[in-house]
Structures are given as C-alpha cells and as structure tokens.
C-alpha cells in the first residue's frame, strides 16, 4: 500500500517538474528579446554551448561506465587482472587505453572510479593518456584532415603511445604521495556493495552512482569549457604566432594552442591540418599529441579528482616530455 502511494507520488512529482520546466521554456523567446548584450557575449555563449554539446555524450557515457564499474567490478577482479610488475602494468594500461574509445573529458570519471577500486596510479595514468589519443575515430579524422594521408595519423598514434609510456613511467617514479583528493577517497570506503543482489538492483545502483558522478563532474566540465570559450572568443592566435619562429618556438606555440583551445581529440586534426604547411612536423605532432593528453577543460576535471600537487607534477611532466620527444623526432626526421 505504502509502496503504491509512493509510486503515485513519484509519478506526480515527475509530471509536476515536467510542467514547470515546460512553462519556463515557453517564455524563452520573450526573455531573449528583452535585452541586448555585446555581440561577443553571444558568440562566447555559442562557442561555450557547442563545446558543451560536443562533450556531453562522452561525459555521460563516461559516468555510466563509471557507475557500471562501481557495481560490477570488485577490487578482487582488479587485483587479479593487473600484473604485479609495475612496468607490465603500465604497458597494459596504455594498451587498454589505446583500445578504449575515450575522450579527454569522458575518461576522468572512469579513472576516478578505477583508482577507487584499487587500480595502481601508474597503470591508470597510462590508460588516461592513451584513451583519448588513440582510437578509431581519432585515426579516421586525422587521416581525412591531412588529405587522406596516413603518415601523420600513424605518427600520432605511434609516437603518442611511446610518449604515454614514458610519461606513465616518469610519473610512477616521481610521485610517492597518494594522488587522490581526500574527499573522493573517503567516499569509497562507505560504498559497500552486495555483489549477490539481483541484476536489476545492481543496474539501478549503477545508475544512481552515475547520477552522482554526473553532478560531481559536470561543474568542473562547465567551468573548464567556460575558460576555453573565453579564450576562443577573445584571444587571437594570429597574434600568438607573431611571437616568434623556429622549430622549438613553433612547437611550443602549437602546444599552448592545443591546451587553450580544448578541442575534442576527434576534431583537432583539422585545426592542425590548417597549419600543416606553415609549421614543422614537430609542431603539428606536438599539437596532436599534447591536446588529447591535457587541456584547459580537462585540467579542471583532473583537479576535481587529484590533489593539486599531483596535477601540477602531471602537467609539467606531460609538457616537458611531449615537447622534447617531438623535437627529438624532428631531428631524426630531417636526416
């Protein structure tokens, strides 16, 4: 009886919320016409929305996968699957990331969950680096962007993989502290799950986790995108490139650009391609490899999961290694 009543009340609440939302929406146009702001504000809002809409499916898939991991994968599974040897574990993390079709913002909730489940940080780092960088969508878009030429696409994958391995190893040697924020760490201890529950209960549990994860992550995503949209609206990259010339400078500038633009890894190849004849290959690879590993919008998401010190070290290590490896490659490429 009580359950029936509860069901009816929930239905009613849903209908009420829906009605309220529809009411709000019917006033949309009237409100929009009521005032006029500077054109650049509208443009920034449009760019902000386009990145948000672009990122949403990936983030939502990320939180769903994260919820499923929370419910269906136990710490024992992880212990059994991950090799004891650190370097083997890193290689495995990188390989799994390469197979996994991720995006730099969708992968953060998954990483958070995996770390909570006891995946060692070095393996997770490898996974986080190759996940957005190496996947079929990225290969295809890079291939198309560079005039149906496989060279850049292959270099992006191959060199990117090697760089990810090096970064994961360096990180594992240089970081001794617990990387997670304490607030996220405490929480897992409370989540204790009955792994014998029915499938339906499990799935609904996973969805509840997904919802919580969504609300936890989305605010950082929004802030990050807001910064990126600001940069895209108000900063001209023609002035950025007037700063200097030369291989190292060009590579550095393209990496700065990749960081600031925060474009999804599925789509950044066309931007790189539009510079393909002005800059050396190291600058293009720097842009294509650095962007998926770290950018403005995902730095904020990383800060939500990891301690600030960890993110700072990660940022420096990724920047230095990507920069030096692509320049080194440029040296060999000339010969």
């Amino acid at each position, binding site marked *: 009886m009580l359950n029936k009543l509860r069901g009816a009340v929930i239905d009613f609440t849903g209908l009420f919320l829906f009605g309220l939302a529809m009411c709000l929406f019917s006033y949309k146009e009237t409100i929009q016409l009521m005032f006029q702001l500077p054109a650049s504000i509208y443009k920034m809002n449009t760019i902000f929305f386009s990145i948000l809409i672009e990122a949403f499916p990936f983030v939502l898939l990320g939180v769903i996968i994260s919820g499923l991991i929370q419910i269906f994968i136990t710490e024992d599974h992880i212990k059994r699957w991950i090799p004891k040897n650190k370097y083997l574990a890193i290689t495995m993390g990188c390989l799994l990331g390469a197979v996994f079709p991720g995006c730099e913002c969708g992968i953060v909730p998954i990483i958070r969950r995996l770390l909570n489940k006891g995946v060692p940080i070095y393996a997770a780092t490898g996974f986080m680096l190759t996940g957005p960088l190496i996947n079929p969508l990225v290969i295809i878009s890079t291939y198309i962007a560079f005039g149906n030429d496989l060279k850049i696409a292959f270099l992006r994958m191959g060199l990117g993989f090697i760089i990810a391995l090096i970064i994961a190893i360096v990180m594992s040697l240089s970081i001794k502290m617990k990387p997670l924020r304490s607030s996220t760490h405490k929480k897992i201890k409370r989540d204790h799950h009955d792994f014998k529950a029915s499938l339906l209960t499990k799935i609904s549990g996973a969805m509840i986790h997904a919802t919580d994860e969504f609300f936890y992550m989305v605010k950082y995503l*929004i802030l990050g995108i807001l910064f990126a949209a600001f940069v895209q609206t108000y900063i001209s990259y023609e002035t950025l490139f007037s700063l200097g010339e030369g291989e190292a400078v060009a590579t550095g500038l393209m990496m700065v650009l990749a960081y600031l633009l925060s474009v999804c890894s599925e789509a950044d190849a*066309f931007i790189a391609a539009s510079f393909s004849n002005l800059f050396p290959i190291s600058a293009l690879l720097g842009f294509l490899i650095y962007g998926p590993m770290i950018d403005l919008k995902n730095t904020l998401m990383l800060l939500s999961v990891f301690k600030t010190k960890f993110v700072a070290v990660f940022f420096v290590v990724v920047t230095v290694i990507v920069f030096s490896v692509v320049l080194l490659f440029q040296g060999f490429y000339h010969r």
Partner: protein
Amino acid sequence: MRFSFIHAFRAMILLLFVLLVGDLYYSGELFMLINPDYQNLNGLAVFILIILFLVQLQRVWFQSEVCGHACEHDHAHDQGTFNIKTCLAYLIIVFPIFTGFILPFTTLDASTAANRGVMLSLTSHALSAQNAEPFYYPNATMDDNHQYDTPEDINLYSNMVTKDEYENALAQLVEQDPIIMTDQDYSIYYEAINKDMENFSGKKITLNGFVYKNPSLDYNQVVIGRFLITHCIADASYIGFLAELNQAPQWSEDAWVAVTGVIKITEYEGVKLPMIQVEEWEVINEPDQPYLYPMHITIR
C-alpha cells in the same frame, strides 16, 4: 515518506538539460553548434539524461525507516545542509541552463575568422602546392554531370558520399568551366584548386561566402570564405579565397556575397595564392546552413 528538496532540485536540473538539448534538436538550432554527422551522439546524450532523470526521481521521496540503497550515496551535500560550497557548485551547474535560456545563438563571423588567423590559413593552404606531390585526379567513372544519390541540400544532414561519387566529383572538377562551388564540394574543390593553382588559373569560378577584410591586403582586395566544421564550431577553420574588385571597399565585413570571377595567381607576402578576379557579384542573405562540413567518404 519524506521529501528531499536537494534531490528534487537535481531531478529538475536533469530534466532541464533534457529539454534544453531536445529543444536544440527540434528547433534545428543544434546545427548552429555541431556537425549534423554527430547528431546521433546527441540523441544518445538525451537518452542517458532521461535515464538519469528517472533514476533521480526515485530519490525525491524516500522512506526514512527503510533507508534504502539511495541513502548511502548522498555524500557531501546531504539533505538540508546547504553551505556556500554546495550553492556555488549548483550555481555553476545551472549556469548553462540559464544562458542557454536567455541568450540566442549566433553564427561565427569575420571577427572569429580573424582570431583564427585567416591569412595564416590561406597561405598555409596555398603553400601545399609547393611541397606536395602532384595532385591526383581519379578517372571519371560516372556520366558527365556528377550527381549524388542523396538530395541536394544534403549538407544540412550529412556530407557522406561514396568513393565513386567523390572521385567523380574530383574528375569533373578538371573539366568544369565555370567551376561551381556547391556546399557539398566546396572543401575538396578548395583543396584541389590550392594544390594545383596553375592548372586552374584562367578558369571561371562561382561561389558564395562572407566577406573578411584585412589591413595587410590591397584596398581592392577582400577574402570571401566560409567556416568548415569538423565536429563543433569550436573547431571551425576558415577557408576562403582572396578576391579582387574595385567595388570591394563598399562591401561591409560579414556581408554574404555570391561572386563569379576568373581564377588568377597573385602573391601575398611572398606566397603564391589563387585569387578571384570578380566579374559579377551580388549581396545575398546568409544561407540557412552557413557552415561547411568535410566530405566523408564511405568505403566500400
């Protein structure tokens, strides 16, 4: 049975996100933001949001005595405790709903093109002629007038062609005079003309685009071009041609024009660029679909 305000609020946020994205889709405004090829991904996003909303709805009324599954997961912001940090977090989450609600979307214009380095992009595309191997033209495999099986306004939905259609379109380009830059062919023709400008020099060309002016150009020169969108407008790149005509100074920036002219080769800061010597022109309205999408070739 108790009512949880915070859970009701969260359910409302999820619902508003669903409506916001759904509304974009039905009003067609979505295509001012992303490449239509990716609209299915957006359907997926809406689907997941609806599921999350339905799950969230179950948590609005909870039974206090049988504290079920849901309770354990209420971390950080528990029922009723509303501190500044939580408030700020929800303000950020509500922000896009708010701006999406009160601010209409605009089309990217010349100032965005300027930010993205129009002249850099033009010279970069033109430089490809110097260091690339000769451009490859496939042999025509279809009849004279290349036709797509798909409707003409295909660009509004997708820019998917078969390999045959693609090769045929390129093969046609060599014989075409005047060259007509349709929405569908624009990006591949643009690339071909830049790579092989000597071959196209002297041919007639018809295209439309919006006007971009740069102080480094001659007084009678402007750039006419459009944005190419890969995934979302944040990754838009500007592709356009230098155009020359005496009436250029009276054109206002951002105006959409349809021009017909002859392709010539000129030099800009030491780089050879294809340029259109405009013969006929008219000012037009902004097209329904102002953006271009890269051509995707289905592999068979």
